[in-house]
């Protein structure tokens, strides 16, 4: 780790691949996040109602329903069986994330990710190394709390304080004081604890981790033998614990990053000068990797 304290993460990759290729996935993610938010704002700002509602539940072209499966699950836990529209919407969204990776929601859709990525960037720029450490299991605790409270009180209790849906909603429906939560999350992540919100606390992230555990699209350390131990991927990764088994596992272990915590943000691909990582259909790559191992 000592190596990367004195250099900018991904510097080698920028030199080798050029700035654009070393930021390709980051830029694509930002485009995706802003485009999705933009689609939601198209209606209220310009009167073009391509999509109506917010990220909790919405309607595309007045026909296709989409519902956040986590919010939907909370509703089920209150003991209420909702109408078919919202069930359909939840099934559509859950199926999508089941295949592309649950936490694709976190890194490609959720606007909070921009805030927490910015906080992490600031940490690196200011070289803040102290970080209050607590378990990444906390989010599963909060996930359990949100569901238990829903069934005990019969209300969507987590939605009373959920900063994610709150900020998404107020961005689309008019800002109240939820911007304070944006500030709070930024301060928490930048100055208190690294990746505290998305990586440790957010129960939505925990839910999507579980949902995407068996996803088809995975980041794969396909060229792990070319790894030169620069540690840039670990430094940039919001969930660095997921890389080690795939990158540093034994020769016979799978190079696929199998953890549901991986957000498929693909920043590891960006910052790697040696092109160790790729993001692909995991079955194809398992095959090609085993062939490679045969050659070795």
């Amino acid at each position, binding site marked *: 780790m000592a190596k990367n304290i004195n250099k900018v993460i991904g510097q080698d990759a920028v030199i080798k691949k050029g700035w654009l290729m070393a930021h390709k996935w980051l830029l694509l993610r930002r485009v995706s996040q802003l485009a999705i938010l933009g689609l939601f704002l198209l*209606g209220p700002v310009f009167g073009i*109602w391509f999509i*109506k*509602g*917010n990220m*909790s*539940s*919405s*309607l595309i072209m007045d026909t296709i*329903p989409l*519902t*956040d499966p986590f*919010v*939907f699950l909370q*509703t089920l836990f*209150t*003991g*209420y069986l*909702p*109408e078919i*529209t*919202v069930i359909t*919407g939840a099934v559509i969204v859950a199926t999508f994330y089941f295949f592309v990776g649950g936490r694709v929601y976190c890194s490609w859709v959720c606007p909070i990710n921009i805030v927490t990525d910015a906080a992490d960037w600031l940490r690196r720029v200011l070289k803040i190394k102290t970080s209050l450490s*607590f*378990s990444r*299991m*906390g989010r*599963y*605790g*909060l996930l*359990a*709390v949100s569901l*238990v*409270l*829903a069934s*005990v*009180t*019969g*209300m*969507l*209790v*987590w*939605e*009373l*304080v959920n900063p994610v*849906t*709150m900020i998404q*909603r*107020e961005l*689309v*429906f*008019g*800002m*109240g*004081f*939820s911007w*304070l*939560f944006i500030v709070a999350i930024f301060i928490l992540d930048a100055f208190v604890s690294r990746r505290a919100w998305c990586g440790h606390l957010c129960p939505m992230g925990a839910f999507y981790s579980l949902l995407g555990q068996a996803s088809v699209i995975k980041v794969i350390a396909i060229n792990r033998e070319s790894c030169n131990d620069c540690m840039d991927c670990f430094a940039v990764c919001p969930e660095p614990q997921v890389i080690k088994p795939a990158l540093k596992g034994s020769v016979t272990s799978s190079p696929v990053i199998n953890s549901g915590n991986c957000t498929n943000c693909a920043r590891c691909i960006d910052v790697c000068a040696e092109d160790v990582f790729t993001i692909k259909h995991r079955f194809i790559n398992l095959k090609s990797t085993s062939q490679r191992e045969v050659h070795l």
Partner: protein
Amino acid sequence: MSNPTNKTLQSRRRFLENISRAAGGAALFGIGLGLYSQQSKSLPSTAIRPPGVDNEGDFLSACVRCGLCVRDCPYDTLKLSKLGENVALGTPYFDARKIPCEMCEDIPCVKACPTGALDPELTNIDDARMGLAVLIDQEACIAFQGLRCEVCYNVCPVRDKAISINRTHNIRTGKHALFIPVVHSSDCTGCGKCEHACILEEAAIKVLPAKLAKGELGRHYRLSWEEKEKAGKSLVTPDIEHKYNLPEGTRYDFEGEGLIQPEFTPFNESAIDRLNKGNL
């Protein structure tokens, strides 16, 4: 052999510590949140839910706060509660004094609701019970001062059923009438048009949650006249008709004209007969 075992024990211990720390933190947070949620259940009396909400608790278990009802409201009546407002975060409500419900016949807000939090069985907007209008300040309402206003009555979409005008005597002047608006809970939808239209600086008629606005008679009470109507006859032995002992030719009309004397016809009897009758 003992070294790796120690290591495993240590890492297991660390793992358990981490888990219990996370679980403890989450549980503490859960307790706080649970208590807060009970408080957030109390809807402020100025916030009115859209049509199709029968029970606040049921509503809060079903609403996913998507705002589709808000988007489909043609009059911008509905809004989603924002952080800092007193209504359960993200749920739809309206403020009748600002923009009341226009009671659209096709009820687009209910149709838009994907979860059924707004009851899809509500198809006639007249059946909506968003709240109940109450003429809450009789001191300020100018109708009680003897002035003609009746604005609330005239804007009421269910006029004459939900609000009627009750004429009573004006004791102050002694010769005029008071035109008092009276709300009937049997027909008031709680749309809030009366509150919106009230001409006072601060409305004298306000829509309140029905729970707040309604009294309830003890279940053991029976109103005799209603029971009589239901049974089609009196349920106690009817009073026997009262017999009056009156001079010949005289009648008594109870609750009517009172004592009715035979018409005085001076020419068909003699003066002495008349004196004998003693009916001068």
